[in-house]
């Protein structure tokens, strides 16, 4: 598996190949903890937020919301404690970048969290890691203690009045806890059900206090933003999507891996066919899901020769989206009916059961898929599935329902032939 930067100097992947990259001394010897020093040496919390705003950093968890704006929603005059929570519940099929960022460079996350906590005047922060990533929690615990011993975590950090605690927390196997309000429910010791927004977590999040929830990759981008300045960071990417982005690539590809690219990297075809070593066994490309399983599936014909730009706007224009940046590459041997059935089973399993459209809808979708797979497909089944999707999309309590509907809707519309072979007379 590859871990490298393409088309830019590595920022987030700068240290991943250095020996003992987890160690605090190695981190410091390679530019680490310079940003928090700069922050504590004369930047105000608002200065930090402004730099992040200027950087055009967008949340890397999937929704792509501008990070600086999210931070600015936290009310400054609230008498309640404020919390920063790192979302390390990476569970989106096809996505595994956060895992390597934490495994190889845990101090980068700690520094990002410290800066976020300073900007939001938070004294208590949590890293919510999915339960399966137990080894990463152990790595983070060691790194936090190293940082504490170096005066970087705890009271009076680097001799200033700034104090901040970082705690690790474990999930226990629930995709839904990657949704920020469900994550907060889980962190409070409840079932991982999402909550109504508004109020947004910025106003009423963890323990009904102002809270910012950010993805690992978002927080690990922050030290570089502070070091080089928001403007310089933005210029590495595009006007609306600043900086670099870490992509996960899996499936029928010669060199699966974690790749850091500048936002707006100019050609998705080149990325797949050259940078990632091309298709496995020389087979033909059939489809790509570029943003983790929840985004629209793309046909090879929408990629080959189309100069698809890899950023938020570019992928939307090409008919999909960045999501969590998890590429699933599929060759000509894949039956898109089968691959979509597989993902629908995932969403059914992971639906939290809180709202009816998602709980019942995903269950019915799996039943229909299974009946078709058992050879009992009917001509009207494609429309039936689209109707079911319609009754989930936009009608479920949280985005999991939409995420279940989109792969099916796009697969039926873009690969009707794969469905047609299981049904007779599909409506196009």
């Amino acid at each position, binding site marked *: *598996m590859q871990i490298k930067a393409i088309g830019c100097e590595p920022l987030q992947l700068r240290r991943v190949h250095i020996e003992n990259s987890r160690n605090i001394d190695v981190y410091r010897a390679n530019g680490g903890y310079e940003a928090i020093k700069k922050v504590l040496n004369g930047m105000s919390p608002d200065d930090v937020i402004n730099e992040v705003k200027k950087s055009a950093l967008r949340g890397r968890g999937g929704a792509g919301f501008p990070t600086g704006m999210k931070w600015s929603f936290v009310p400054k005059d609230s008498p309640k*404690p404020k919390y920063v929570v790192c979302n390390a519940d*990476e*569970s*989106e*099929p*096809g*996505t*595994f970048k*956060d*895992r390597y960022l934490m495994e190889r460079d845990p101090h980068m996350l700690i520094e990002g969290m410290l800066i976020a906590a300073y900007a939001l005047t938070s004294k*208590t922060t*949590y890293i919510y890691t*999915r*339960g*399966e*990533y*137990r*080894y990463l929690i152990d790595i983070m615990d060691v790194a936090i203690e190293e940082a504490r011993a170096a005066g970087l975590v705890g009271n009076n950090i680097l001799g200033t009045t700034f104090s901040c605690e970082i*705690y690790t*927390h*474990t*999930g*226990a*196997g*629930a*995709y839904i806890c990657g949704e920020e309000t469900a994550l907060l429910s*889980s*962190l*409070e*010791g*409840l*079932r*991982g059900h999402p909550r109504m927004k508004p109020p947004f977590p910025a106003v009423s999040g963890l*323990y009904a206090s102002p809270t910012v929830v950010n993805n690992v990759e978002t927080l690990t981008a922050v030290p570089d933003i502070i070091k080089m300045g928001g403007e310089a960071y933005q210029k590495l990417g595009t006007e609306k999507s600043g900086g670099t982005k870490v992509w*996960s*690539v*899996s*499936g*029928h590809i010669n060199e*699966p*891996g*974690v790749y850091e690219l500048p936002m707006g990297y100019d050609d998705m075809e080149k990325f797949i066919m050259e940078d990632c070593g091309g298709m496995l066994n020389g087979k033909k490309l059939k489809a790509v*899901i570029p943003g983790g*399983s929840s985004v629209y599936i793309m046909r090879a014909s929408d990629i080959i020769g189309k100069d698809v730009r890899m950023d938020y706007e570019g992928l939307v224009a090409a008919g999909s989206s960045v999501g969590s940046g*998890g590429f*699933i590459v*599929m060759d000509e041997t*894949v039956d898109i009916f089968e*691959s979509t059935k*597989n*993902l629908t089973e*995932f969403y059914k*399993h*992971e639906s*939290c059961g809180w709202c009816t459209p998602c709980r019942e809808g995903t269950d019915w979708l799996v039943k229909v898929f299974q009946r078709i797979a058992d050879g009992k497909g009917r001509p009207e089944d494609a429309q039936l599935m689209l109707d079911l999707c319609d009754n989930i999309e936009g009608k479920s309590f949280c985005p999991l329902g939409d995420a279940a509907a989109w792969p099916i809707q796009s697969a039926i519309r873009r690969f009707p032939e794969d469905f047609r072979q299981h049904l007779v007379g599909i409506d196009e």
Partner: protein
Amino acid sequence: MSQQLTKIEPLYQPVDLEVSPATFSSEVEAEIDRHLAKYPVRRSAILPLMFIVQRERGYLDPAGVLYLANRLGLRTTDIWEVATFYSMIYTEPIGKYHIQICKTLSCKIRGAGAITEHCAKKLGIQPGETTADGRFTLSEVECLGSCGTAPMFQLNFDYHENLTPEKVDQILDSL
């Protein structure tokens, strides 16, 4: 009127009034205290504590649930409610070695099915089952974040990646 209503028979409820809360060594109690100290609200420690109970007792049994209820100041129903939500919390006994094969798309198209078949044949059980000697439980699970190194399984907490049937033999034979 009341005669028209269906007569309600009391449900059979296997209430074991004899169950007393689990007890743990002072080291484990200290570990639990360290987790509780992280949160302003005790209930927040419920998942970390469930993992500790599982580690110590094999699974989250009624005595473990009662212990957690007492320790966290909650009702036993609060503990069960949370326990049954999360797929990594086991409320039934489970094999000493839990093989969890990722079945989601990236693994599926890189041969997860063959790994499942191989494990099932080797152990003589189907996914969802435990061997008669209680050593192995085989499960198919959803994405474990190991898509670039597919196919893979998680054996208890350890990731084993880029699996082949030969590699699976090596891993399982070494246990």
